[in-house]
């Protein structure tokens, strides 16, 4: 009997948190936005969501097989990537392009760099940017969600940028009756999911708050015809800002691990997003801002090593 004891390092007690549980929470939190997207853009949106999830999951399975590594489907991270990617695509996207996005996100961005936790860019966002550059026409073919006969239209940010007529109201922006990606249409649905993530402790508020706060201040100060006349609320509610701030910039693998680091990340994302939106030719800047900051994360982590408890110990 004596030889049968398990001998291991302390602690001998673990809590019930698990990676798959966290991923499941993220999926739950994204459901309102997905449902809103399907409601406003119709069954085509549902098809896009199913295609990206399937292609992500199959890519994950095959990539792990080929690399002779453990099957990691059960951590649900591939499902999260697929779902996030779909929410970042227009509903008009040809399904084969959506599928290519899933393959790119999983194989190139995630698994080639070592899999879960090792990727240096958010896979879904990197795939979106890849598709945007490779298939610009398809990726910017927006439709207005109203009615069955969807007609090509512009996103609220494009309208704002070009000064065209038909700028949607705050209520439309908030509840989702606007053109854009599947997941970014309804701020209300996104906030509902975000509150769930905060409540469950899956994400901490530093990144979303500093991100959205920075965009609000910057666009208020510089976004109008003269200083301090910008429409900050419009900028917050339109485009992918809420989706990006709560669900993409907070991605564990590609965001800093300390509170201070996370605040810096949010600030950086906010500045880049505002700069792109106000001064670049492209109307939306969230994707680029986040993946640029993703690249800076190792650097941020390096310069935000906290001092130990009671610490006057110098930290390099």
């Amino acid at each position: 009997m004596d030889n049968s004891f398990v001998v291991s390092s302390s602690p001998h007690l673990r809590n019930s948190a698990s990676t798959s549980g966290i991923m499941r929470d993220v999926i739950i939190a994204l459901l309102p936005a997905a449902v809103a997207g399907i409601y406003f853009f119709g069954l085509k949106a549902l098809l896009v969501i199913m295609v990206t999830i399937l292609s992500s999951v199959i890519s994950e399975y095959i990539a792990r097989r080929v690399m002779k590594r453990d099957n990691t489907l059960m951590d649900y991270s591939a499902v999260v990537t697929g779902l996030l990617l779909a929410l970042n695509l227009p509903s008009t996207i040809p399904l084969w392009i959506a599928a290519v996005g899933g393959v790119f996100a999983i194989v190139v961005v995630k698994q080639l760099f070592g899999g879960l936790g090792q990727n240096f860019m958010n896979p879904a966002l990197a795939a979106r940017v890849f598709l945007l550059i490779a298939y610009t026409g398809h990726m910017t073919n927006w439709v207005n969600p109203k009615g069955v006969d969807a007609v090509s239209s512009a996103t609220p940010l494009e309208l704002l940028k070009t000064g065209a007529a038909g700028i949607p109201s705050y209520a439309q922006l908030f509840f989702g009756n606007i053109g854009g990606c599947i997941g970014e249409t309804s701020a209300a649905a996104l906030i509902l999911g975000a509150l769930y993530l905060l409540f469950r402790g899956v994400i901490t508020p530093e990144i979303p708050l500093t991100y959205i706060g920075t965009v609000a201040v910057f666009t208020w100060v510089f976004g109008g015809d003269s200083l301090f006349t910008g429409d900050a609320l419009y900028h917050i509610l339109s485009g992918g800002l809420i989706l990006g701030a709560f669900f993409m910039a907070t991605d564990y693998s590609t965001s800093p691990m300390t509170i201070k680091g996370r605040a810096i990340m949010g600030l950086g994302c906010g500045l880049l997003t505002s700069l792109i939106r106000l001064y670049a030719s492209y109307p939306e800047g969230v994707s680029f801002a986040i993946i640029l900051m993703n690249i800076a994360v190792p650097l941020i982590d390096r310069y935000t090593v906290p001092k130990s408890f009671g610490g006057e110990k110098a930290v390099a």
Partner: protein
Amino acid sequence: MTFQRMFKGGASVPHLKNTAGCETIKMGVPQKVVIPMLQHIGSQCEPCVKKGDTVKVGQIIGDSEKFVSAPVHSSVSGIVSDVAPMLYPGGVFVKSVEIKTDGKQEIHEDVKPPVYKDNSEFLRVIRQSGLVGLGGAGFPAHIKLAPPQHKKIDTLIVNAAECEPFITSDYREIIENSWNVISGINIIMEIMGINNVLIGIEDNKPEALKEMTNVAATSDKINVVKLKSRYPQGAEKMLIYAVTGRKVPPGKLPSDVGVIVMNVNSVSFVSEYVKTGIPLIKKRVTVDGPAVANPSNVEVLIGTSLSEVFEFCGGFKAPPKKVLMGGPMMGIAQFSLETSVVKHTNALIAFDEKAAVLPKPGACIRCGRCVFACPMNLLPLSLNNNALKENIEELNKYNVSDCIECGSCSYACPAKIHLVQSIRLGKSLVRQAASKGGN
């Protein structure tokens, strides 16, 4: 007095204080005892008895010339049957004295109430008692009570936080011997010239808080502090911060911020020893865990084998798959039940098959839960990565040596990574490198 001052992080571990209501039961004299020569942090003692010698209760059977050490006494009367390296609770072999008991428990003639006139004589007496920190660390008490002259000590903190799950041995001391605690405090206060005593107890032990507050009311120098129940509230640095607001800097000792921290059982022992002169030869041990038939608090003679203690508690109701000396957060997993209860043993926990399952570590998702859990403000995931890469420079950069091994990070990790295990490896790598004078 309630303090809301809290360290950052930690873990809300289950309390599992099943034995809180179990009055201490005295266990009889076993057939034999095995008394290791190392029952403290510091230098190992040399046995001063040999095979065939007759020994009595309280007789010194091992001592050391070294500064950081404490003598070891016989807990029984009988005949020394062996002096050899034997399995020690830490999993290594340590020179030990095996004694066949005669059951008479004759007290050795040197055992008499100690006499002391001043501080230095008191310290000699404490050394003679064999007292080491009874909270689990086992640091020799006479050294703790003798900080360097230039460090002015103004506060004695009595640690009764008992934040580890299962363990109730500190709690029972307060419930059963609160006056001993007070009288021990008074002895130490007087001899050390300390005028401020704070007794820290977690708020999940209202009975102990009430009892201690009642008896402490006799002195306006002694105050009971109600602590928030959160692991590791009883860790020395966290406790000092909670009750005084002082933070012990990395690499420094409590005496550097003017405090001495003693476990409640240690304080109580001082009083008992001054009264009777009987050295540290017995210990209250909480015996619990899913595999134990009758969870109990047992007064055990030091040197008694774990198997006999478990037997005394009705044996096992399920096959034990993992046996811990100490609590589930910081306790040491045992290879065998033939090791002995030592001075700083405060609990024996036996897990059944289900509780003993080792979680399979997955990939780190960098969620930061370990960072938020670390009460020392470290980055466990970076320490883990650099320990596995044996990168000593980076380990130092991330302050690996400040880790107190409380286990909060591993507890919180959703990927079930064995963080503390690799951080321990990292700490020893850094120690080795430093002793080589490298880097």
